[in-house]
């Protein structure tokens, strides 16, 4: 543990943190613009060029709002809950490789905060901890709609985590490693999207469900639950939930890119640029989904998760295992 390692790690942490904090307002702007045009509207256009500063203005507005704590709320849990999903999202981001190694002053630095040999498990673990923020936020509000929203979301996340994990296992079988950096390295001459297309589709569906976004936004279904788990949250507490949702979109996209779409690999352009291009495309795709599909009904959501996605992901795993065994014995 020398000084160079400490400095480079601190720098990487700051870069990723800054990127997410600056990127989220941009994604929100992109989402409002894209959905606006998809619905034949214009979207934000008043603040700044193309309405670019709209999200900044909204952020300042949220800062100025009164910070309410409902009567009878569990105060400590109510304050801690909004921070939890943000923390877990950042923890998950720490293992996603966003570029090849760079050499600075004779030190070779991998562009990834840390390369652990259990990265995939780490990501699954941290995202599964993210549900606490929502379920506790719902519970601590001492109000019926938030509680219902929180419980819905915990059931949803537990159900979809299984299929998500199993779809990742199929790729792990092919690569024989749990480290995201090695998984990306192995995709130099072919992305895993070709052999593992079904795994990717299953993962992406579960990923969108994990971020609690449309068409899986039952936890905050406006038409039935006011605003779900964050009904009672105002000011920066609400903003934290908002931030966590978009940071989680980045996590889900980052994993999909690293595991199925070759990570930072790509011709001509530098690796980091490729990663950013892929990331933007994925974020656009998730926004596009929201503009396209209506919300699922609750029983449909559960039936889809347990009776369709889970068996399909197991089938995908079994086929992958059989093919790999046959290929190894030939």
């Amino acid at each position, binding site marked *: 543990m020398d000084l160079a390692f400490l400095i480079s790690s601190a720098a990487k942490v700051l870069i990723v943190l800054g990127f997410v904090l600056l990127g989220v307002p941009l994604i929100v702007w992109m989402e409002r613009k894209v959905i606006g045009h998809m619905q034949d509207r214009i979207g934000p256009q008043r603040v700044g060029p193309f309405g670019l500063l709209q999200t900044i203005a909204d952020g300042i507005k949220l800062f100025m709002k009164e910070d309410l704590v409902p009567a009878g709320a*569990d105060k400590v849990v109510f304050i801690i809950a909004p921070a939890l999903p943000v923390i877990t999202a950042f923890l998950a981001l720490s293992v996603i490789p966003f570029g090849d190694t760079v050499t600075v002053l004779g030190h070779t630095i991998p562009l990834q905060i840390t390369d652990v040999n259990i990265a995939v*498990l*780490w990501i*699954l673990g941290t995202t599964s901890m993210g549900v*606490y923020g929502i*379920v506790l936020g719902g519970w601590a509000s001492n109000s019926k709609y938030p*509680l219902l929203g929180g419980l819905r979301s*915990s059931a949803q996340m*537990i159900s979809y985590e299984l299929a998500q994990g199993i779809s990742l296992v199929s790729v792990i079988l092919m690569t024989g490693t749990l480290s995201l950096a090695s998984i990306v390295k192995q995709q130099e001459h072919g992305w895993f999207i070709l052999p593992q297309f079904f795994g990717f589709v299953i993962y992406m569906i579960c990923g969108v469900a994990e971020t609690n976004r449309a068409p899986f936004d039952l936890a905050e279904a406006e038409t039935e639950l006011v605003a779900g788990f964050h009904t009672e949250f105002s000011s920066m507490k609400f903003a934290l939930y908002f931030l966590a949702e978009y940071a989680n979109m980045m996590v889900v996209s980052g994993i999909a890119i690293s595991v199925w779409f070759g990570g930072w690999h790509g011709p001509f352009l530098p690796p980091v640029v490729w990663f950013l291009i892929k990331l933007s495309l994925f974020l656009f795709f998730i926004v596009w989904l929201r503009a396209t599909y209506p919300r699922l009904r609750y029983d449909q959501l559960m039936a889809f998760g347990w009776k369709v996605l889970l068996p399909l992901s197991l089938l995908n795993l079994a086929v992958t295992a059989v093919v790999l065994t046959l290929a190894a014995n030939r």
Partner: protein
Amino acid sequence: MIEAILFSVFSLGAVGFALNVVFRRNPVHCALHLVGVLLSLSGLFVLLNAQFIAAIQILVYAGAIMVLFLFVVMLLNVRGETPLLTPGAAKGFGFLFALLGFVELLWIVLGSGGGEGGASKPVVVLPPGFGSPVEIGKMLYSTWLFPFEVTSILLLIAVIGAVVLAKRKFV
């Protein structure tokens, strides 16, 4: 040095959270402190070079089982429930189990040969890759294959049993 600091943070954290699990009145708070205990333990696992176990601890216990605990506690809202044991019996059982646990710990500590007067144990040199998923996988599927398979069959039986119980019509 850093290891000593981390060890004290995680172990003190584990003990503090565990005390809160016992003494808190609100069942949801108890469950949350139990999550804290599990996270501290996984930190200790990392210090023991068992990263895989640490990740599994977070993924399975803190991430899945405790969420279900919370789920049940919130849905049932057990505050007004009549307890299974009378307060006296609960205290008796608690004392008995605490005593058993203490004796067991004492047994391990005294039996390990270290401590006062005895020579301290030599530092164990870990083989390369100790605690990594690869090594654990190799051991599970070679040396410990039989217990591994027996455990999986046991879990399968439990799953089928749960389905059968849930499907039964209570008349």
